[in-house]
């Protein structure tokens, strides 16, 4: 074989590729931007670059199903360039961005603009979600065929409610015509009733307007029924309640075409963390009870919830500098996605292979994309991290433009040392 | 307070009070004050005033002042957690007042007490009686009647203990506690 420019060998790392059932210390060879082989290289393979991954974990690059990069429209919070660079540092090689930008991602032009910016930055594969309705107005269907042709991998109406269940049904039907995944944030707007915290003992005491668990469970039940009627493939984003997770387990047993993800902070924080009104813990859906967190952890461990996402919502300081209910919800989550998931392994929630699966092949399978595995011929999107390095979260350690993290001071396991996108090194840690 | 020594026992204090009562009697007669109103400053001043009030057989009930709200060191030491209401049961307007305190040191307590009395009304006169008149004055205030003039070092501290039996103790000046040490309020 002729020596090619992009030929790389990652030596002696512990390769964890859950999608292919691999967990062993070996070499990984990359050629032409694609995975070439594990173990023995083909004859005459002479890599230009060798990365020593001794004592490190080598896994597929992470896929984050749900991020808001704020561009276009809110570049004072974050930009595609700033957040894709942060993703690369965090071992994330694929980002699915939500359509709630300004303007909304509801035309091929906006899709094109976003993809162009991402390519120019060059850190990360950016896959936009298109708007389910025009301008997210909740009543008029978007041009989904055109959006798909322009590169959208799914459609969603984000947090904006649809006008009624009839629109919901037709939107699902129309999306399924083009084999477009419908991503739903299940939430009944009337039950939400301008709440900002889980309706329960903490909100009762703090006097915070509550969002009942039923706001989610009602919507999950409704949308499962509509999906069955329409035959559409749907995906629930950011489940927050154990009850919704149990419904998902039932749907899975029934063989329904439905998947779900959870935001990583929901697997660590609960309503109890709202004491003191820390606005960095203001999230939507709200942090719920201990038993909700435990139920979600169980569902993730059992693969009832197939993906863990960051639900990245970077904010400028002002957005969080108000009394709790008046602040904008969301956590800047890219930097902490991998370490917080590894923390679940430390805490015995699941094994390493399952944890990596929820960040790689799990989301890839939801999107039905040939990503998230180290299968020969697949794009060489790779994350290498040192599992023995601990670090503490602080504003300086957060590389997203949004410093709004509730995990300040937490000790995090695992530090990404190299990230490769299509066989190209997009991040490597400068060793002192 | 472990290194305190007794300065005077109860019988000594009681006889000083007798002497003070006699001096007050003479003074009010000289000034032709018929019906004085006696006011004690919390806490030691009230113990003394109760005894003097009885010995002199005064007609009107005894008044008590808690100068916590008038202290000039509030901004340094904060609110006294053991504040009691002042109680002046009779209007002070045009009355001759005998103000009683245990130890006259810097004069700041008396300054505060005078201010407080004037917030209740306009007395005809105020006569000051203190058990101990010690050195260390920071304000131009002098007693009209006093029981004792001990000679003390600036870092010595004399305190009336009570209410039963009364006694005077002497100790090195304790560091001011931030929570409003009653004995230190004169400083």
């Amino acid at each position, binding site marked *: 074989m002729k020596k090619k420019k992009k030929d790389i060998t990652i030596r002696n790392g512990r390769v964890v590729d859950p999608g292919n059932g691999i967990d062993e210390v070996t070499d990984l060879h990359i050629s032409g931007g694609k995975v070439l082989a594990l173990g023995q290289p083909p004859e005459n393979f002479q890599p230009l670059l060798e990365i020593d991954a001794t004592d490190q974990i080598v896994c597929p690059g992470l896929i984050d199903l749900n991020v808001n990069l704020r561009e276009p429209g809110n570049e004072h919070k974050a930009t595609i360039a700033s957040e894709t660079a942060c993703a690369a540092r965090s071992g994330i090689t694929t980002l699915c961005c939500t359509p709630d930008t300004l303007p909304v991602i509801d035309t091929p032009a906006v899709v094109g603009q976003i993809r162009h910016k991402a390519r120019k930055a060059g850190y990360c594969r950016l896959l936009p979600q298109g708007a389910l309705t025009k301008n997210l107005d909740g009543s008029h269907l978007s041009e989904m065929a055109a959006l798909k042709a322009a590169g959208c991998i799914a459609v969603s109406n984000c947090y904006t409610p649809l006008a009624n269940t009839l629109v919901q049904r037709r939107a699902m039907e129309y999306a399924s015509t083009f084999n477009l995944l419908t991503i739903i944030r299940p939430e009944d707007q009337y039950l939400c009733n301008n709440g900002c915290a889980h309706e329960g003992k903490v909100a009762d*005491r703090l006097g915070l307007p509550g969002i009942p668990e039923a706001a989610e469970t009602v919507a999950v039940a409704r949308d499962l029924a509509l999906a069955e009627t329409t035959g559409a493939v749907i995906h629930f984003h950011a489940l927050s309640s154990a009850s919704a997770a149990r419904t998902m387990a039932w749907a899975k047993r029934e063989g329904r075409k439905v998947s779900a993800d959870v935001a990583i902070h929901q697997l660590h924080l609960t309503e109890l963390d709202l004491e003191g009104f820390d606005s960095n813990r203001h999230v939507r859906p709200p942090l719920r009870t201990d038993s909700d967190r435990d139920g979600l952890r169980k569902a993730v461990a059992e693969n009832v919830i197939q993906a863990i996402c960051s639900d990245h919502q970077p904010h400028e300081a002002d957005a969080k*500098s*108000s009394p709790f209910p008046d602040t904008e919800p969301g956590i800047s989550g890219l930097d902490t996605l991998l370490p917080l998931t590894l923390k679940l392994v430390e805490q015995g929630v699941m094994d390493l292979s399952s944890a990596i699966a929820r960040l790689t092949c799990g989301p890839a399978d939801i999107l039905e994309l040939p990503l998230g595995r180290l299968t020969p011929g697949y794009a060489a999107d790779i994350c290498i991290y040192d599992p023995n390095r601990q670090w503490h979260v602080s504003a300086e350690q957060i590389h997203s433009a949004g410093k709004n993290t509730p995990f300040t001071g937490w000790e995090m396991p695992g530090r990404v040392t190299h990230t490769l996108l299509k066989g190209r090194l997009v991040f490597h840690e400068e060793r002192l | 307070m472990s290194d305190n020594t007794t300065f005077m026992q109860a019988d000594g204090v009681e006889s000083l009070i007798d002497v003070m009562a006699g001096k007050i009697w003479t003074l009010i007669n000289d000034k032709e004050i018929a019906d004085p109103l006696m006011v004690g400053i919390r806490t030691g001043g009230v113990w003394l005033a109760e005894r003097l009030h009885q010995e002199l057989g005064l007609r009107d009930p005894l008044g008590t002042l808690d100068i916590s709200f008038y202290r000039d060191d509030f901004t340094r030491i904060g609110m006294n957690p053991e504040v009691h209401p002042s109680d002046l049961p009779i209007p002070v307007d045009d009355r001759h007042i005998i103000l009683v305190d245990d130890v006259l040191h810097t004069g700041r307590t008396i300054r505060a007490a005078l201010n407080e009395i004037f917030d209740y009304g306009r007395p005809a006169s105020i006569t000051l009686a203190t058990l101990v008149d010690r050195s260390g004055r920071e304000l131009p205030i002098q007693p009209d009647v006093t029981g004792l003039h001990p000679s003390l070092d600036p870092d010595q501290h004399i305190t009336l203990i009570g209410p039963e039996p009364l006694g005077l103790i002497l100790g090195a000046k304790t560091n001011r506690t931030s929570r409003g040490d009653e004995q230190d309020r004169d400083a």
Partner: protein
Amino acid sequence: MSLSNKALQLDDEQRLLHFLTIDGLDRSILTEILDTAEGFTGVSERTIKKVPLCRGKVVANLFFENSTRTRTTFELAAKRLSADVLNLNISASATSKGETLLDTLRNLEAMHVDMFIVRHATSGAAHFIAQHADPGVGVINAGDGRHAHPTQAMLDMFTIRRHKGEFVGLRVAIVGDILHSRVARSQILALNTLGVSEVRVVAPQTLLPSDARSLGVHVYHDFDEGIRDVDVIIMLRLQKERMRGAMLPSEHEYFSLYGLTERRLALAKPDAIVMHPGPINRGVEMDSKVADGSKSVILQQVSYGIAIRMAIISMVIGTQNQRTQEVAV
């Protein structure tokens, strides 16, 4: 980072730095507030109705929500302590013009204000201001959203202690819109901290928090049962907008079920007292005969409110003063 209520409100020596919520305060500090207020009750009866304790201090009444009554008692309390008072009624429109709460705060701090007394429609607003205020500036919560109204609760405790002597053994019923009431939340915390034997809440399910029992109360839907043998009855104000709609069908039905009448009052202990944070909706929350009757202590609540607020203002200013001195040394 957020501090616990205790860490935010108390210094190392357990003295009040801010007064934001009853939550996190123990019985000794609540008792200290009540005792200090006793000292201030006489001030209103003097020829000169003020003491020089806070002379030269500037207290800003920062009211983002209109309330003439509460603002007036705070103003009077501060003035009786000889503080200078700034009254700022900041309408919602001013803040929506782009000036944030922090901007407002910084502007006032530039005028060397020593204390903020804050009322705001949003839960957590007073916490937010306390967390962002300069060191040495105390914050008192005069009502934030549904969260807390701790000075109102303390004046209610003062009123109860004046009438009942102590808290141990008392049964207290709080009646009405618990869900939206910051007053009820603070009262429940204060009553339980001070050791009453039972706190009851009486309301239809639509006016109760989702998990009312977790607040430490017994829940009654039937007023006749809930009022039986209680020592203290606290009636809450029902906002007009809640009276018709999905919360309650009508004023008429509310009064028939939850209005305090002489007949119902007879079910309580013979020496029971009736309280209300005001202003009363006569004929909705209670009958006029009860409001003006011998068991009503509603007007005393108002006058005790000044002494309680004098106590809290002076305690907070005293602690903050000392803190700045310590920093300066």
